[in-house]
């Protein structure tokens, strides 16, 4: 079980994350969506203990009950070796071009688990099979450039799974892939969380990829969680104006919408230092009220598993 409680990450005067809380039970799949610059990747890095040196963090991160907020780098390193792993958008950039992919995946096995060369090779083969890499035996000796994008992403997933982590953070894992390949990768991630009882944090700006992968959805804006809940409920009945805007900006599939203008969220995500003091969506929100710019909207429980932070909901509750 991994939790983040009231996590705040500051860079100088600007807060990249503000009061973010998240609970990850084994086997749970959580999607994090929002525009670029909303803090999605920063949350992923914070959970991995990989924040840049300039960042000041407040709040608690616990792994299996142990508080890691002030843990030294060595503790984090041991955790990253065994308990958590991360994959990224660009598999090419994450693999050493001069290393055979079989060796890349064997490295953590030999280093962290102390396996012999032969034992490591057998484990790599098993991992390649588990992640659906074709002709796994031949692939062991190939270099990253010899593989397709989808196969490379599978190698990275195999690498991430090598030491049997309890948590996998996938940051835009399908964004650089074709639609068919992306479908198979999200299928694979779902299957792995089931067979391994592994928690998954799926960070993406692609709502379609997130919708088919996760069971819980977290919507971030300006470094805050503005809405969260079961994925089907949030997508079919969004409560925060930002979530509504994100979903509404997608072109509808039904016929009859040719050349009809799409609803847009005006403006762009403000930079860290320009963020409004109160609700961070103030200034772009279509339903803005006088109190929005000055005061932060409290989180309102809107269902058994759902919450959203918006003054509209606070008013409705009173």
């Amino acid at each position, binding site marked *: 079980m991994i939790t983040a409680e009231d996590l705040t990450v500051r860079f100088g005067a600007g807060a990249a994350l503000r009061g973010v809380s998240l609970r990850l039970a084994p086997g749970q799949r959580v999607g994090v969506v929002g525009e670029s610059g909303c803090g999605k990747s920063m949350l992923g890095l914070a959970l991995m203990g990989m924040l840049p040196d300039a960042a000041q963090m407040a709040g608690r991160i616990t792994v299996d009950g142990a508080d890691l907020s002030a843990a030294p780098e060595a503790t984090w390193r041991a955790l990253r070796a065994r308990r958590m792993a991360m994959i990224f958008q660009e598999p090419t950039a994450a693999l050493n071009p001069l290393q055979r992919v079989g060796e890349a995946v064997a490295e953590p096995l030999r280093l962290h688990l102390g396996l012999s060369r032969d034992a490591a090779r057998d484990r790599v083969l098993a991992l390649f099979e588990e992640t659906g890499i074709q002709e796994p035996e031949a692939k062991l000796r190939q270099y990253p450039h010899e593989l397709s994008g989808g196969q490379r992403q599978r190698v990275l997933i195999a690498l991430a799974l090598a030491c049997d982590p309890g948590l996998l953070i996938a940051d835009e894992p399908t964004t650089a892939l*074709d*639609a*068919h390949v992306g*479908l198979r990768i999200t299928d694979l991630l779902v299957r792995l969380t089931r067979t391994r009882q592994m928690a998954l944090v799926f960070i993406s700006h692609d709502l*379609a990829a997130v*919708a*088919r992968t996760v069971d819980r959805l977290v919507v971030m804006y300006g470094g805050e969680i503005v809405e969260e809940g079961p994925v089907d409920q949030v997508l079919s009945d969004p409560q925060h104006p930002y979530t509504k805007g994100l979903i509404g*900006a997608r072109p509808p*599939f*039904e016929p009859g919408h040719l050349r009809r203008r799409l609803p847009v969220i005006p403006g762009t995500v403000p930079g860290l230092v320009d963020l409004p003091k109160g609700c961070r969506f103030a200034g772009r929100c279509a339903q803005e009220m006088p109190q929005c710019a000055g005061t932060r909207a409290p989180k309102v429980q809107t269902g058994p598993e759902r919450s959203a932070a918006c003054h509209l909901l606070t008013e409705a509750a009173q």
Partner: protein
Amino acid sequence: MSALLDVRGVSRVYPRPRRVLWRAEPPLVAVDDISLRLERGQTLGIVGESGSGKSTLARMIMGFEAPDVGEVRFEGQNLHDLTPGALRALRPAFQMIFQDPYGSLDPRRPVGWSVGQPLRAMGRAHSTRAVHEALERVGLSPAAATRYPHEFSGGQRQRIAIARAIATRPCLLVADEAVSALDVSVRAQIMNLLMELQEEFALAMVFITHDLSVVSSLCDDLLVLRHGKTIEQNAAQRILAAPQSDYTATLLAAAQITPQSHAATAKGQSP
């Protein structure tokens, strides 16, 4: 009546290097016998994944490379029969925008220089006013002309690329994955801008994408490509309502946000 763009049976084959000395590799057929027509003010969506030949087709439409077989007719003239000078004279009439505006704008030149480039190419030296007009038309301030590409966000950079493409008042715009790299909200803004420009200039558009979720609002017709061959070609709404191939059906499922779409694709059934 001749269409604005009439592509007739084009094919393009690339030789592949030998992997073994004594045997030639079979050539790669990037585009295989594709025909399409596009009228003024209409949009044709070309849908396919990497390697489907959609970018090769775009390059042939733009006259960047010639087909091995077939012809590309623009306003009745075969582009690839024209002399280089005649092609250059025609070029202001068809322009292109790309997925990565950062890669298509010179980082060391102010934005105004890049936007003015096609105007200079057609011999209009004093084009500052035209540059400012183009920037204003895409929703940027004329002051943007003196700033550099890195000072802009991804959406703004795509606006700059569009400003450059419309500066010469073209009648055909080829957009290669022009909205694929953008966030949903910015994507909607850019798509709305393209719709406005299309109505204003009766602009014909070839809209190349791998993401079927954007075609319903933009495209009159669709051409679905795979391995250089036409899989489906029909009115966009008909393909979206009832895709005729599993390939298209999967692309559709991948673009929908109903959580059930996952189950549908796992079974490999068309929805």
